[in-house]
């Protein structure tokens, strides 16, 4: 799992997440408090709240740094919201937890499979090849590469 990392020198720190996710941001929040930086915490516990997030993010000033910690399924939507609000990769950290569906690109037939994040080997649902799930990710395919698992 990706860990939240403190990035210094920001005008304001914004922490968004579900109660569960806040635990993952705890260390960074404590550090921000200790060093006396401006910050805000927004707890998102239902879909309604995450929909309102869009307006809230759009009102933020330049120099705001955003941390989001949500379950993988909810995280994707918030990532998109943040991007649409004009926040870049350099101004955000997204921490996901729980089950995640990954897309796996079969190295032999180019078929796309879905697998849960803890599965290391799967059978390609199109050509039947045993695939070992790698961390080689393609933005274009939105999938990771599945290699031949056994020779």
């Amino acid at each position, binding site marked *: 799992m990706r860990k939240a990392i403190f990035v210094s020198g920001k005008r304001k720190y914004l922490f968004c997440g579900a109660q569960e996710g806040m635990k993952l941001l705890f260390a960074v929040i404590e550090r921000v408090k200790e060093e006396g930086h401006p910050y805000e915490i927004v707890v998102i516990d239902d879909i309604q709240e995450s929909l309102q997030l869009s307006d809230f993010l759009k009102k933020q000033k330049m120099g705001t740094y955003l941390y989001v910690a949500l379950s993988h399924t909810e995280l994707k939507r918030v990532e998109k919201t943040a991007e649409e609000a004009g926040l870049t990769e350099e101004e955000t950290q997204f921490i996901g937890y729980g089950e995640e569906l990954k897309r796996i*690109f079969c*190295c*032999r*037939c*180019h078929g796309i499979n879905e697998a849960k994040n803890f599965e290391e080997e799967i059978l390609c649902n199109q050509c039947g*090849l045993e695939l070992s799930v*790698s*961390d*080689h*990710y*393609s*933005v*274009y*395919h939105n999938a990771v*590469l599945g*290699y*031949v698992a056994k*020779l």
Partner: protein
Amino acid sequence: MKWTDNLENFPYPFKGSTYRYSNNSVPMKKPFCIEVTPDYLEEMKLKRDLLTHHPERCYQSLPHTLTGQWEIVELVMDHLAEQYPNQFSLEKKGRQWRFHNKILEEKHDFTFGDETTLPDEPLAFISKHVQEDLIFMMQRDGDLFLDAGQLCFPANWSLAFNLGMKFKSIHHPIPGFKEEGLDDRILQFLMRLEAGNPWERKNWSLMAGDRLDTSLETFDQWGKLRKQVTKKNAGELVHIRVEVQKLFRLPRTNGILFTIHTHLLSLEKLASNPEWLKQFYEILSELPPHITDYKGISLYKNEVLEYLCEQLESGKVL
């Protein structure tokens, strides 16, 4: 058919007694993006068969690459006609061009810049006349993207998967590449490449077998040979695979043409040159595990070393 070069023409890749990943590019002495070798006819036949039967594996392009593809057509045809006037010719009358491949006895009349006058997309079309694989990288947002390519002879990677990918993501699977900061240094180097000043480098690996088309898509077939290497058969079965890679900046689109010419030589032939045998033995003995793993040598490295050692001791080399 053996896809093995002659010793005299083989682009032997090693210097010194150790090997590590590095940006080993050098400015080209003869600035031609292609080379025609005695294997031309056989390799063109193989390449065309692969392009016909496995188009998705061997050719990919994004729609915004057409201008760049035409630049590649121009560069490659100019170089063929200039360097090999007895084998190729090119006549230009305004936009009306006539390309003559005398080896394959093919003439093509077309209007430069008009795709409808060619049998294929421009990059696919010109790739059917050269032994090299042709990769087109486009530069934007401070990065390079693999936006089109023809790849028939890959060293175990997939063009279809890597399409549209950024430079650093393409090289993500190479162990140590990122940690040593090499990915960033090479990206910066490539982004500074200037038109008119092409560079080249050699890359190498070992393989069990002598297939040129070692695609990731067919690894389940050819990879099995790695388990069959013995000290006894290593000389014949194992080949050193060298890619001569050339880098050209394309001035109109500011993209980069990356050509890859793959050469294979059996260990037996390599070992017949005493200096190469000694040097390669030293390099392979010293190679760290993260490099042998990535180059796919781990399964049979010991067998190869035993074979090379035997050759050294057989008195050929003192």
